């Protein structure tokens, strides 16, 4: 790729960013924007979790914990930067800090727990997820169960649609490139047969931790953008990062098809949109949602896309190389 093309790509990206910003402002109502934002956050969460649960075959149900780390780290950073920096760069820095913190948390959780398999790993990740949430709840400087920020302050509402969808795109490209490369093959090999993967020279524990850390990083990014969501409440509390959040993400990837990145995006969007459309059922909303899930699992147990990708190969540079 030449420097000129890189520059061109960069300019196109900026133009697209500005265009999306204005288009959403001009045409989409506040409600539609909120759903779009939710779809983007869900897509990030689902694609991240899919790297661990789908590609590497390690069953984690503690990702709400990493989302919490990202959300708190990100919003605290922007609180600190408030008044010292323009809103855009401040959000960028907040997201980078969020990714770093969540990635670190991923390594810390992954190293001891990824020696376990199956049910045991699920239980341990669930436990770690809860530990993270409860630790935040009991930390007074973070606002405890009242949430952050303390008092009447609020998190800057800087994450507009181009930010959130830009984050989702970044997640898809990075995790997509990783998945369809020799690293991704190593991770898939671990899912398929760990002993054979070791015999093929792959240090399985190290790679599982790597997948876990990258997954946690992008879950943290999702958390940070969720906290700064321009249509959200500008306030986060530990209650948003309970086990049911982890289960939600799991539902998205199972919906979309375990192991498929485009499936994960689709699953995230379907979950966000269907929960909105079901609002008219009011009190029965979750019952109808559960019935829908059961229905889908009976009709398509492998999820919407199975473990294949939707034919968007042109958008995934890795696929182009792979099919050449």
């Amino acid at each position: 790729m030449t420097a000129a093309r890189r520059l061109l790509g960069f300019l196109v990206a900026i133009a697209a960013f500005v265009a999306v910003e204005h288009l959403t402002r001009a045409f989409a109502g506040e409600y539609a924007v909120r759903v779009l934002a939710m779809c983007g956050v869900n897509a990030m969460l689902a694609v991240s979790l899919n790297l661990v649960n789908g590609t590497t075959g390690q069953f984690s149900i503690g990702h709400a914990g990493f989302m919490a780390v990202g959300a708190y780290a990100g919003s605290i950073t922007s609180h600190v930067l408030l008044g010292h920096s323009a809103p855009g760069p401040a959000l960028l820095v907040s997201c980078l800090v969020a990714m770093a913190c969540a990635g670190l948390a991923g390594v810390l959780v992954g190293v001891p727990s990824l020696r376990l398999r199956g049910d045991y790993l699920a239980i341990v990740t669930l436990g770690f997820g809860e530990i993270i949430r409860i630790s935040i709840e009991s930390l007074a400087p973070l606002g405890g169960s009242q949430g952050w920020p303390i008092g009447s302050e609020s998190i800057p509402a800087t994450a507009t649609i181009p930010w959130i969808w830009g984050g989702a795109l970044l997640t898809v490209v990075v995790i997509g490139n990783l998945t369809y490369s020799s690293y991704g093959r190593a991770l898939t090999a671990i899912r398929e047969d760990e002993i054979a993967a070791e015999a093929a020279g792959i240090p399985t524990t190290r790679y599982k931790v790597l997948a876990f850390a990258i997954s946690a990083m992008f879950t943290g990014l999702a958390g940070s953008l969720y906290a700064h969501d321009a249509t959200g409440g500008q306030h986060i509390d530990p209650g948003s990062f309970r086990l049911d959040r982890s289960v939600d993400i799991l539902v998205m990837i199972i919906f979309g098809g375990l192991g498929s990145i485009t499936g994960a995006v689709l699953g995230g969007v379907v979950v966000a949109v269907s929960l909105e459309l079901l609002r008219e059922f009011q009190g029965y909303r979750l019952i109808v949602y559960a019935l829908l899930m059961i229905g889908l699992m009976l009709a398509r147990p492998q999820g919407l896309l199975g473990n294949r990708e939707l034919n968007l190969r042109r958008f995934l540079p890795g696929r182009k190389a792979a099919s050449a």
Partner: protein
Amino acid sequence: MSAALSLSGLEMTFGGLRAVAGVSFDVPEKAIFGLIGPNGAGKTTVFNCVTGVYAPTAGTITYQGKPIGGLPAWKIADLGIARTFQNIRLFGQMSVIENVLVASHRVTKASLLDVIARTARYADDDRATRAKAMDLLAFFELADKADQRASSLPYGDQRRLEIARALMLDPRVLLLDEPAAGLNSAEAKVLEGQIRTLRDRFNLTVVLVEHNMQVVMAVCDEIHVMDRGETIAHGAPAAVQKDEKVLEAYLGAGHDAVTAPRESTGETPAEVLLEVKDLQVAYGGIHAVKGVSLQVRRGELVALIGANGAGKTTTLKAIARMLPLKAGTVTFGGKNLAGVEAHELVAMGVAMAPEGRAIFPNLTVRENLEMGAYTVADRGSITARMDEAVGLFPRLGERMTQLGGTLSGGEQQMLAIARALMSGPKLLMLDEPSLGIAPVLVDQIFEAIDRIRRKGMTILLVEQNTRRALAAAQRAYVLVTGEVVLAGDAATLARDPRVQGAYLGEGVALE
């Protein structure tokens, strides 16, 4: 002396079991080296120690002048020792070429950042490894199947793909674990040539664990024979083949057992209880049983013998309705068993003590026995049979409240037989009752089997220990690669040199 790989005093203990009890040998550079021995000898355990799946309990493994015992498996693969697996471990959902590419990951020059940013270095690296993988696939005639899912390949292709994947590591030593398993004799012949070609073309040292003695005798320069974790012979193929200890290990000890009292079998033949006609079974791409016919008459003990992989257990499982039949019929007491479920068979009067015993480890001995009587409603007969079982195996009586999993292998085997008897069967099927069990207990188990038969039980026995089986049985069938090659009176077969051939690969003429 240049040894590619040397083992010295290697020991591997699991719980109380010494699977490998002090094995030493040197594998010369560029040799094709055979590691053989009957089932349970510890051959695969040696492989697992060498390749880092297990850390050896004691002893050293030296490769290129350095000790490698206890290193992680990926590190050993990295150093140049590659392997295949007895029960094929491919990455089933990945394509054929991806399976091979996985093994090139260690030499990849592209970093994580190269991968994410798709730099030129990544593209070059990817192109180079793909080209190399395609070369290997072409060598194994798999190039046109490069994009198929590995799990969709026929069995023979899967075996070759596993070797291709191992070679992608650029190994100096290649360990093949039963490469001829599931191949017919023509395919095995082809494999012999391939192993030699591999060694020459890729400049390898090959170590081979194999039960197909035709292959072993044809390709190996040197052979190491193990039995029950210990070395019993070492040398050139011709010498090993004639070694008395080796014959004993394969055919079972107990020349005196042949003289065990035997009733005359010349009386009026009893009715046929079990009849198997032209049975064919295929699974996982292997055509394991290719038209077996046999009969078991009421009150008879019939043995089904043959080398490992001959299809004995598969036949038994098909009779027990645990595997689907590809063709043929099984009739029990005049009733065709097609459509009968495995669990219904117990109520009809067929009980089995499966290979590997399969007792319930977390239930007590008493509870295990009660589970065997699951189909029996009458408390009184359960108690009576429980007493009978204890009479047959006094050891079980002493251990009634102990958990099944804490018993020794031999005791577990006794429990498995006793459990099978609890349902009050008309036909008892025993699958390898002597497998992996200390000789003293094997004596006790065979005495018990004899007593069970004398009480009028009909028994179908699958057994590797040929001498024992022929001493206990009235009639026997000898299986070789899924076909009955010899059948007849057990005493006659015991003296038939062709039976020995069926085990040690001297080529039994079919028909």
